[in-house]
């Protein structure tokens, strides 16, 4: 039991987790049929990439990787605000959130 408590985790596991999260985000982007859920899949991809940034910051003992994640978070917040405003505008114009029915740029 004491060996279980002192055990260490290889950083490659963290990187694998981030790759799997990113792939799940891509799969969600492809299979989901709701505009909001597609947007959530993009956030999932961003989070997967952030995890690998933090892992490499730990590996190289560098602060810059963490600062990059900080900037990604700020950009993601701005992106979410604008994206959800666009989704509301689309819903008002089309009265649907199904991506199959939103196939035209013009009204």
């Amino acid at each position, binding site marked *: 039991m004491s060996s279980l408590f002192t055990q260490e985790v290889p950083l490659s596991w963290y990187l694998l987790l981030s790759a799997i999260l990113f792939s799940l985000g891509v799969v969600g982007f492809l299979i989901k049929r709701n505009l909001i859920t597609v947007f959530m899949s993009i956030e999932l991809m961003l989070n997967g990439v952030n995890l690998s940034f933090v892992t490499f910051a730990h590996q190289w003992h560098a*602060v810059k990787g963490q600062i990059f994640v900080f900037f990604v978070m700020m950009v993601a917040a701005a992106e979410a605000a604008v994206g959800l405003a666009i989704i509301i505008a689309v819903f008002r114009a089309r009265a649907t959130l199904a991506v199959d029915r939103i196939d035209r740029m013009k009204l």
Partner: protein
Amino acid sequence: MHLILFLVFAGLCLAGAINLLLQSHPINSALSLIVVMVSLAVLYLLLGAEFLAAAQVIVYGGAIMVLFTFVVMLLNAGREERTLGSRAARAIGFPAVVAILAVIATVILHAQGLGVARLSDGITSTEELSAVLFTKLLLPFEVTSVLILIAILGAVALARHSEGNADSQGSAERTGEK
């Protein structure tokens, strides 16, 4: 201890991500995304990024996901209809995803010199982080504030524009529903 914490929260993270894909109602997807983000915050803490763990909970788990759930409830988004999607997505998309994951996994598993993470590694303090952020990277930081200002203006402009533009159409649809 690190191993146990990693396994528990990595498992939660993956379960949340898979649940996001399987749920058909957007609000359930949003709630499982919150699980993913909070367990990622614990993983950041395990990697010694204390400030990012806090920011992850506050910005992602708090602000962004509140925005998401708010929009889901505001638009009263119902259960999504399952369709097959485009043929290109099935023919090219999924093999491409599998290929990318396989390539990344192979590279990671064969990488030399990747270290290990222990609980005794110590954490990167917020002081260290801000020393770099506010000296070397001050200009990008300030530019980001402009970006956020533009995003606020854009969000307000988008919402107002559609209101003025589609008002007659929207009210016509609303009366049509009644």
